[in-house]
């Protein structure tokens, strides 16, 4: 770790102001950022901790939507969304280990947009809205490839607003070492159709599998996708799985998610 300044603002406004400084960076739960700093792979001059900002925390219902503050930890979502949005709660409960879940936040996960992270699949499949310090961004516009999002410099995520689907499930196939998603598929069924989002698989980060969405919107059953296949082109190939394997898993996990939803 290199030396850095740290600020602990109490409000969103103060945080935004603090982040206007040169080489300032937001610090959520630190579960991604702190290891990066320890490995000396990043050297921000100033960290702006978001963990003291009360308005970024907690879950609330807004009509038929579930709104989650960006500073809400995975453990809190796992516990408190269990009734309102069980598939989302289950996803949060399957991230990392208890230590990670007690610190890591939904905002940090989305801002980081790790291609193997779980939350992006839920946000994209739910058609959620990412609310920031300056605007509202639809999920379809938010994720822009591996570790890339629509966020501008100094812009912070304040909350995420999820429409709650009629039925949903997240199926995660763990990478054996990191236990992030080797492939993860989130299926969400709404009155007006089904959305399927895939994480872990593509070199372009989280994506929607539109053929499956069309087929499942017609017939929400695992059989509905039996004739489909996913192309290995553009899929990640590494030690833990070939592109062919990942493409295959997308279909297997989609089927399982439909069955479990």
């Amino acid at each position, binding site marked *: *770790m290199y030396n850095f300044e740290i600020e602990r603002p109490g409000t969103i406004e103060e945080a935004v102001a603090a982040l206007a400084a040169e080489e300032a960076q937001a610090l959520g739960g630190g579960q991604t950022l702190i290891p990066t700093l320890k*490995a*000396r792979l990043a050297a921000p001059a100033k960290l702006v901790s978001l963990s003291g900002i009360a308005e970024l925390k907690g879950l609330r219902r807004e009509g038929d939507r579930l709104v989650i503050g960006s500073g809400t930890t995975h453990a809190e979502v796992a516990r408190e969304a269990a009734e309102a949005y069980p598939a989302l709660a289950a996803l949060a409960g399957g991230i990392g280990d208890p230590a990670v879940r007690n610190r890591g936040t939904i905002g940090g996960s989305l801002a980081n947009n790790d291609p193997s992270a779980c939350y992006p699949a839920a946000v994209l499949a739910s058609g959620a809205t990412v609310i920031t310090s300056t605007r509202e961004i639809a999920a379809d516009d938010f994720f822009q490839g591996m570790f890339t999002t629509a966020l501008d410099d100094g812009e912070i995520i304040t909350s995420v607003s999820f429409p709650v689907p009629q039925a949903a499930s997240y199926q995660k*196939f763990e990478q*054996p*070492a*990191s236990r992030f998603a*080797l492939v993860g598929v989130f299926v969400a069924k709404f009155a007006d159709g089904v959305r399927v989002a895939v994480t872990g698989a593509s070199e372009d980060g989280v994506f929607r599998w539109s053929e499956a969405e069309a087929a499942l919107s017609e017939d929400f059953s695992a059989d509905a996708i039996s004739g489909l296949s996913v192309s290995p082109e553009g899929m990640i190939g590494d*030690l*833990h*799985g*070939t592109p*062919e*394997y990942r493409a*295959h*898993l997308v279909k*297997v996990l989609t089927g399982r998610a439909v069955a479990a939803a």
Partner: protein
Amino acid sequence: MPDGGIGASSKRREDVRFLTGKGNYTDDINIHGQAYVHFLRSDVAHGRIRRLDTAEAEKMPGVLRIFTAADFEGVGGIPCGWQVTDRHGNPMQEPKHPVLAEGKVRYVGEMIAGVVAETPAQARDAAEAIVVDIEELPAVIDMKEAVKDGAPKVHDELESNLCYDWGFVEENREAVDEAIRNAHHVTTLELVNNRLVANPMEPRVAIGVYDRASDEHTLYTTSQNPHVIRLLMGAFVLGIPEHKLRVISPDVGGGFGSKIFHYAEEAFCTFAAKAVGRPVKWTCSRSEAFISDAQGRDHVTKIELALDEEGHFLAIRTDTYANMGAYLSTFAPSVPTWLHGTLMAGNYKTPLIYVNVKAVFTNTVPVDAYRGAGRPEASFQLERVIDKAAREMGIDPVELRRRNFITEFPYATPVAVEYDTGDYNATMDKLLEMADVAGFEKRLEESRKRGKLRGLGINCYIEACGIAPSSLVGQLGARAGLYESATVRVNATGGLVIMTGSHSHGQGHETAFPQVVADMIGIDPSMVEVVHGDTANTPMGMGTYGSRSLAVGGSAIVRATEKIIAKAKKIAAHLLEASEADIELKDGQFTVAGTDKSVAWGDVTLAAYVPHNYPLEDLEPGLEETAFYDPSNFTYPAGAYACEVEVDPDTGKVEIVSFCAADDFGNVVNPMIVDGQVHGGLGQGIGQALLEHAVYDENGQLLTGSFMDYAMPRASDVPFYKVDHSCQTPCTHNPLGVKGCGEAGAIGSPPAVVNAVVDALQRAGHDVTHIDMPLTPSRVWAAMQQG
């Protein structure tokens, strides 16, 4: 007999401090005035150092001194402890292994400079400020490429990248070829024994201390064998005689082989402490451990097994490439040769065996012994090829093994070792019962109903441990003796201290060794303490590895205790005014045979130190004895393992649903500790089979340089084990009749897992005969797609 003697499952007394955070590990030790070193390590696998400029870095805050190779002129290289002679009678090629890189870097992680500063962060900052310009050279990573003509050379001064081409038994070479040519059936298997990183829970640490007044050096280090480090570093690297060098290895958090070796960091800290005039401490980070701890395994093998019509084994021929990495680590050359070729007979009567091993230098971290060392590689290929042969010939794999079991002992194998005892049918019978093999078909059906492919893998293993007879290993190229030592000191009021040359880094010596001594004397084990890990207060011993501590170190303790008892009987005879021949020791009481005259252990020990009524003219006062024990043979633990798996046909994910181990360890001192040793070994073997793999890219970058990509087994990856060690054929040549149990689990389990997965796929109609470890879901799925 008091409670807690030989055979009692006494709880491990050391666990009280380990489990309550009271252990005293090397990193817990801080010496007044200490400075810290950070090593600048190479980030390229092969290159020529064009420029190394420390001028700016030296001006950084807190920097005391920066060392480069130039500072180590006149200092010896890191020595190799074993010289292998090749097929043609020539010694292996042995390159210099400098403390800091000289002119060239040869693997990612090699130390280029050491920065000593007031704080770890300052040392690290300054290391980053060192200007180093390296001309990158093509790296050699693949062993078969490395030995081709014209391949880039890891060491310019050597003829090639071939360390040695070893043949064993060379005289059998042609006879084996002929037997294979003429055999009824030959089964061939090509396989990889995957490279592993040991990853003990505690990374390495070293602290060098120098006392100018007495000219004495002290090294605190995370070692499995402090005496060996003292000898290697003192005599070969730094030129410090033993009486001026003390090596202390306090609590050590696991080693699994990786802490046997003498590492350059130890020599650096010892050297720098004198040069700087301050204690110098180095604490390895986990990331650094991945690129600096000696790694394990990494063999590429072709094995052929020739059989007659009835399935009797006629001959075995193996052809192995063994990775040495960039330099020869302490025992590296012995692992693929004497710890591997000598075990190729396994549990079977095969008259002719020829093992060829080409040891190869590559631009990777040095490879050396890792739990089992050579023996897992032997067992894996043998037990895999037998399974394949059984399928090819349509013989039940258990039956094929039984048909070839060695049943008469002692048995001299064609690969130079003599098994003293064993009963391979007994462990197999026990295993089949434990694993309910008879009920397998029913479980298979039940798995099928749930859409899972079930498979059963069974295999045997044998190992040679309790290493080893010094005269034998000397002939085989060892540059060290392999005896063990013990001093048993009896205190005036009857308590005892065992000072052992072996070292405990998880094995439970502090509990098991007192059980032995207490049993011999008939006192409570709480009266006995163990001291280990400090060259200043233990007799010179060779340390702990190769499942040797009880078999060799325990034997030394028995011998020393026998001397104690013999002397104590003399004292008792004097006190009881009886003849020494009539004195019996039982339950801590000396009695005169056939009388009710007796004197207690404590009265005798008191007399030894308060010799008022004492035969001073015949006997020295005091009660302290030392013994050195050099075994006459290895010990040969053996057993049979069964693994049952379920494979998910959609994802290729393997789940181990049961694992049974029937081991013959000879006599057992503490069954609970033995269970634990087997559990740990099984965990590591399963880790190797399913998860662990150190992978380099073609440029020599370690792709699995952290736990994000290097998969360690977790609790949920392993089942509840069933282990049994009731089949006991005691070792015939050591006084305890023990064989050693530390490595068995890691040796016997990888073939069981792979056999089980191949079985599952074949039962499901896939034409799959082998999958290389680790059997990741991706690999298993790919295998199912192909056949």
